[in-house]
């Protein structure tokens, strides 16, 4: 047993912390919340130069062939800096399933551009319901003898407005058998019949509604085979979920650090407020939950990376991440007092992202239900 990061992961963490504190200051994050693109293409290009976009891609596609745990470390750091942009959708939501399910032709055609930072990808999965239950996918792809025609809507698609390609999970058969009737497609966002609109969110974090009207897809655009969309879906619901949890874990650490520093410097009644037991114990509770979340994320990522059953632990991590992130932000703001509630303070940047972290890839209740099945209920 070993809780330590390996040397490569420690170097990656140091490099990420340096780079992000330099290139992605909180001021920059705030500017990007107001920016119509919602991200900084130069920052993304630099990330590609550092090898981050190709971190988990095989070397023959211009990647570095690192593992899931390395990506966990990197996303934890991005979470600490609430780094805005399409890194997560491109790498966590799309590059991983592309490598896992893509044909040789698809991988050869797409992977190198992801690693090079030339193309942005996103995942169109959830719909108007906001549900991450496969049974709630209604967007249809019907075969007309030569092509599939996609019709329907996808919601909360991160950075679709900036994306070059989407992985779209559609229903290709009857609702009565959700195991077999989903199919994943790779769709070029420039194709006809596709309409993308930004959803104004409280965090200005580039989530979109995507509408499909007779969007054509050929057999070569299918990811993972006809009727195998459920496999793609299940894969994403594990690998991307744990990566989202890593990001949240990093954000929680940042909120705690910020709040602890404030509790030491803010003087009331002639003492730092952190010397009052009511505040101190709240901080200790935050620390306990933040550390617990971090270990649960590492543990479930390790289970997944080492090929063991990981679904229950990943759902545990996601349910815990949703709860802990919300709680540390609420307690963090309260300990800051009125300044924490102001637009000028950074803690609000974290607070505004609670809901997107909570709902993307399944909310707390969804994952608690999965945990319940996992423990025999």
């Amino acid at each position, binding site marked *: 047993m070993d809780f330590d990061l390996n040397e490569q992961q420690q170097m990656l963490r140091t490099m990420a912390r340096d780079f992000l504190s330099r290139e992605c200051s909180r001021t920059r994050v705030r500017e990007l919340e107001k920016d119509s693109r919602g991200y900084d293409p130069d920052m993304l290009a630099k990330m590609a130069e550092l090898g981050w976009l190709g971190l988990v891609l095989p070397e023959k596609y211009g990647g570095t062939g690192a593992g899931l745990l390395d990506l966990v470390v990197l996303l934890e750091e991005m979470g600490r800096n609430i780094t805005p942009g399409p890194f997560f959708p491109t790498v966590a939501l799309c590059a991983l399933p592309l490598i896992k399910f893509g044909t040789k032709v698809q991988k050869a055609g797409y992977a190198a551009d992801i690693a090079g930072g030339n193309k942005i990808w996103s995942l169109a999965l959830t719909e108007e319901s906001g549900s991450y239950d496969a049974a709630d996918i209604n967007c249809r792809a019907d075969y007309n003898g030569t092509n599939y025609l996609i019709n329907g809507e996808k919601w909360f698609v991160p950075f679709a407005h900036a994306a070059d390609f989407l992985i779209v999970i559609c229903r290709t058969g009857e609702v009565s058998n959700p195991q077999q009737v989903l199919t994943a497609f790779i769709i070029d966002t420039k194709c006809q019949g596709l309409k993308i609109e930004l959803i104004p969110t409280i965090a200005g974090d580039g989530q979109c509604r995507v509408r499909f009207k007779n969007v054509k897809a050929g057999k070569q655009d299918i990811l993972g085979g006809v009727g195998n969309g459920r496999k793609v879906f299940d894969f994403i619901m594990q690998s991307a979920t744990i990566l989202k949890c890593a990001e949240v874990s990093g954000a929680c650490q940042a909120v705690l650090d910020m709040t602890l520093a404030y509790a030491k410097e803010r003087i009331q009644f002639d*003492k730092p407020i952190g010397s009052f037991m009511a505040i101190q114990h709240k901080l200790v509770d935050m620390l*306990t939950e933040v550390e617990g979340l971090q*270990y649960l994320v590492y*543990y479930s990522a390790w289970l997944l990376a080492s090929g063991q059953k990981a679904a229950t632990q990943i759902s545990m991590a996601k*349910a815990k991440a949703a709860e802990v992130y919300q709680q540390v932000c609420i307690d963090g703001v309260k300990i800051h007092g009125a300044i924490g509630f102001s637009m000028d303070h950074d803690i609000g940047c974290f607070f505004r992202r609670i809901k997107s972290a909570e709902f993307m890839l399944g909310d707390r209740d969804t994952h*608690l239900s999965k945990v319940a099945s996992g423990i025999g*209920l």
Partner: protein
Amino acid sequence: MDFEFSKKEEQLRREIREFARRELAGRDLITGLEEESLDEDWEFAMQMSKKLSQKGWLTMAWPKEYGGRDASFFEQHVYMDEASYRGIPGMTMGVSGIGWVGQSLMLFGSDEQRKKYLPPIAAGEPDGIWCTAYSEPNAGSDFANIQTRAVRDGDYYTLNGQKIWTSCAHRARWCWLAVRTDASVSKKQHGISLIILDMKSPGITIKPIYNYAGIHIFNELFFDNVRVPVANLVGTENRGWYQLMQSLAFERHSVAPQFYGTARRILEIIIKYAGRTNLHGKPLASDPLVKHKLAERAIELETLKLFGYEITWKLSKGLIPIYEAARNKAYCDFVMQRLATTGSEIIGAYSQVDMRSKWAKVEGSITRLYMMFPGISIAAGTDEIQKNIVGQFKMGLPRPY
């Protein structure tokens, strides 16, 4: 990052499972502690201690010369987790000896003390049963406020005063005792010493205190001119406070693996109960409310498990986990409370049936935990004390009191 146990550790887990199946014959005691209440339970626990010692498990992490077998921290972790899960009575032998006296004597004791006191503990003998007397009527969380006096007179100390909440005193051969040897100091943490008290000494009165569940764990101890040889002083006179803090850290280290084992068992019991108990013609286990509550408990348990791994990993690297032990103790108390309350909600009205009654559900295990958890949470320092330790030692915050 690697969360795998070694083959050796997994093998040990299987051996303990096998041992429990063979030896317990349904006499498992899931929440422990109360084994010292009834004579018949205690006798069985002592038999088990002996057998655990013969297996080489009782004090496995101790050096060979004191009756251990130099087992790794991880082997010990697996033992504590699995033996607690199986509810093997006698695994802690009244707690003190195995929990902290042994390790403290190895750190601070004299050679003679180690040779005299450690082997009977390791052998699972009645002479290896210890109690620990720290608290006094006016020294609870403010432990440094102790008043029990040990006045030196030649080769002896003369002991006068009172201790309270002393678990296992009615079973113990020895007492690990904190006393004041210097009352003139300006800082009350100074002037405290640790001494070994022979419980057969004249002048000791033991008065039982029954807890609100009717179980006899605690006692009051009264000392009336009790004579203790100076050779029984542990470490340095008046430097006891530092030694006590280390001793308490040993006590808290074991909390997570041990109670994780217990909690894991209890959660399983509740899940099985929910699966076989129908309400409105459907199993309780299909009720979304029940599912969500139990899923939440499972997440808390998984977190506790990892906190336990973390401490064991740090110990195995030669680090001294101070705040981690306090954090785990407080988190463990939180987990036990949630588990006890959820469990009692799920067995419903039956949670109030006496745990020994034929009408008790799940052998009274939930009720037992429900009755015991507040006491468990106060022992070894309240939540508030643990959080103060984390605040100061980990977070660098000023002392809040």
